[in-house]
């Protein structure tokens, strides 16, 4: 929700990022304030996941220009673990499997690390078990997933739910959800959307990367951005997503060209 008294959580300015000597992000500008929900759409390969991973501090990407302010800190000066501790959370498009690490052990370690950084008490295994089961109820997840290795053998949709469970535990300031909706069946989509809405409040913000309006029917964005070739080429309200759904990305091009013609 857009509000007058909101704080700027994220301020990305002219961000350029390379990987393997190829420029992928070519000047991103994006401001996200507390309480807001932003959607980022765009064709395959336009750089959405790259932006998400750059925000989370993935070591494969080199920042060549620009800046990212997060909650009044220079985000680029922080290592990925410090970013998470400061309140950045990325729900991955493709969550990886970590055989041998029990999900419960992993979730508790992450939770306690972040709690202690925030000056809060850590939970012992029994306390944590109660706590995590409550959160799992919200996402209608079977507690059996605690005993399995992290994401190992989880179905696509189960992995996505496990990501949102992590977000629910870590209560980030900024949640970046990279195609959390893809791979979810219709019921699971509603459950996950309910969970995200439940977690979203006036102190935090969400960036939803998605290809589909159906997610935005359930989590209504304040802003919709369209990415192309490493840039945000258009920003609008929630109706922009509906237009895109109706007319496709070519419509956007025609539109932009017409506008360009008009201003010339």
């Amino acid at each position, binding site marked *: 929700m857009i509000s007058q008294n909101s704080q700027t959580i994220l301020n990305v300015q002219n961000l350029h990022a390379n990987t393997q000597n190829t420029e992928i992000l070519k000047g991103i500008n994006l401001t996200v304030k507390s309480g807001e929900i932003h959607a980022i759409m765009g064709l395959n390969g336009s750089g959405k996941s790259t932006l998400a991973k750059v925000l989370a501090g993935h070591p494969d990407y080199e920042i060549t220009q620009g800046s990212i302010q997060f909650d009044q800190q220079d985000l680029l000066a922080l290592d990925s673990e410090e970013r998470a501790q400061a309140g950045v959370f990325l729900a991955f498009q493709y969550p990886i499997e*970590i055989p041998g690490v029990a999900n419960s052990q992993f979730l508790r370690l992450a939770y306690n690390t972040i709690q202690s950084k925030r000056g809060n008490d850590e939970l012992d295994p029994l306390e944590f078990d109660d706590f995590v089961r409550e959160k799992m109820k919200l996402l209608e997840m079977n507690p059996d997933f605690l005993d399995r290795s992290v994401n190992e053998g989880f179905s696509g949709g189960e992995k996505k739910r496990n990501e949102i469970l992590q977000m629910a535990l870590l209560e980030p300031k900024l949640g970046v959800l990279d195609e959390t909706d893809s791979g979810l069946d219709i019921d699971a989509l509603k459950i996950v959307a309910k969970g995200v809405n439940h977690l979203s409040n006036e102190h935090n913000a969400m960036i939803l990367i998605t290809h589909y309006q159906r997610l935005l029917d359930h989590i209504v964005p304040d802003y919709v951005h369209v990415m192309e070739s490493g840039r945000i080429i258009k920003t609008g309200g929630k109706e922009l997503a509906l237009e895109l759904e109706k007319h496709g990305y070519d419509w956007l091009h025609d539109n932009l060209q017409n506008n360009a013609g008009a201003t010339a």
Partner: protein
Amino acid sequence: MNALANIDYLSSLLQTLSTQNPGDFPKDLLPENNFPWLKQLRTQAIDQAGQFKWPTTRDEEWRFTDISPLSTLTFKPAQPGNSPALADVSPFFIEEANNRLVFVDGFFTPELSNVNHKNQLVVGNLAELATSHSDVIEHHLGQHFKSQKNLFSALNTAFLKDCAVIIAPQNTVITQPVHILYIATQAETTHYPRCLVVGQTNSQATVIEDYIALQKPANSSYITNSVAEFSLAANAQIRHFRIQRENSSAFHLANCAVSLDYASRYQAVSVTLGASISRYNLDIGLRAEAAECIIDGLALISSDQLADTHTCIDHLQPNCVSHQQHKCIADEGAHAVFNGKIIVRPDAQRTDSSQSSRNLLLSNQAKIDAKPQLEIFADDVKCAHGATVGQLDNEEIFYLKSRGIPELTARNLLTYAFGAEILNRISIASLKHTLEQIVLNQTQHH
């Protein structure tokens, strides 16, 4: 000058056997005159041992494993009679095991053992069971090394004095494991642990083979030369958990042979932690249709340890299944070797076989030689295999860090997890827990 210094290990051993000086040769618990088959077995083995050459790195089978430090040792056979204090041994007991056979320096030690006579398993040592179960024992003992006989298994048989014997009679299903605990106590000796496990038709049993050291002085050197034989009759199911936690000065040379009959199933997990130099040969023969083996292994070594695992799975008949996962974690200057041979004979159509060898190097000095070896002579087979050697996965580290977990913690956790994946296959909770603690301690860098 000590004249013995010029005599190499092998000839000095064989000399020990031929001279039979009562002072330095163990008292025979099994008078050969009463057991002609045993006499024959030993005599043959002595002959064979004399024909083998000492293996060097020029032999294909020993290419990566230099055991020359051993050849200069003249470690005499260990003597019976040592009995460590119960308080020193009891920490190694496994609570789920309702049968425990303790062998000290290769000799059965009843006062530390616990044989449950109420259940239907036949559990004991050779001296005790050789008369009552001579038919089964004679039929199996020393009979499962047909193709893979080597110097060390021959020497073990030549020195055969005692042996753990476990027989699961027809149709008996026992879930509680039998714990065979081999304790090496005598410095500068060679001991010859041995076991024979026979699963008769439709039986089920679980065996833990466990090697530990209680040496005085604490880290003395000694040699373990062990042999294990498993025979599974039709539809038998045997689980075998093997833990090698010798001290860090020990030399451990071990051979295990497994023979599977129709639709039988062998599941094994072997965990290698100890010894300065260790070599484990595991030979599995899938000798009848629909037999199945699932074997997993973990070697976790550091310092200048060398751990070599050689496995050979021989598919002789159609419709058999073998699945194998082997992992090595080598830290500091350690050297791990894995050689996994899979033979699919011309008759073994519709074989389903998979092998995965994954190896983790934790330091620049550590070394891993991993070699899958497939010899496939049938055409209708499914064989999946893969080997990787490398460091921790950067995407996994990033995933953990992106949840706020510090890099070092993430690395330690992933290293632990790499090993724990194998430990998860151990169905005995307390053993699994003990090993998890050991692996956890050894994978935490600061």
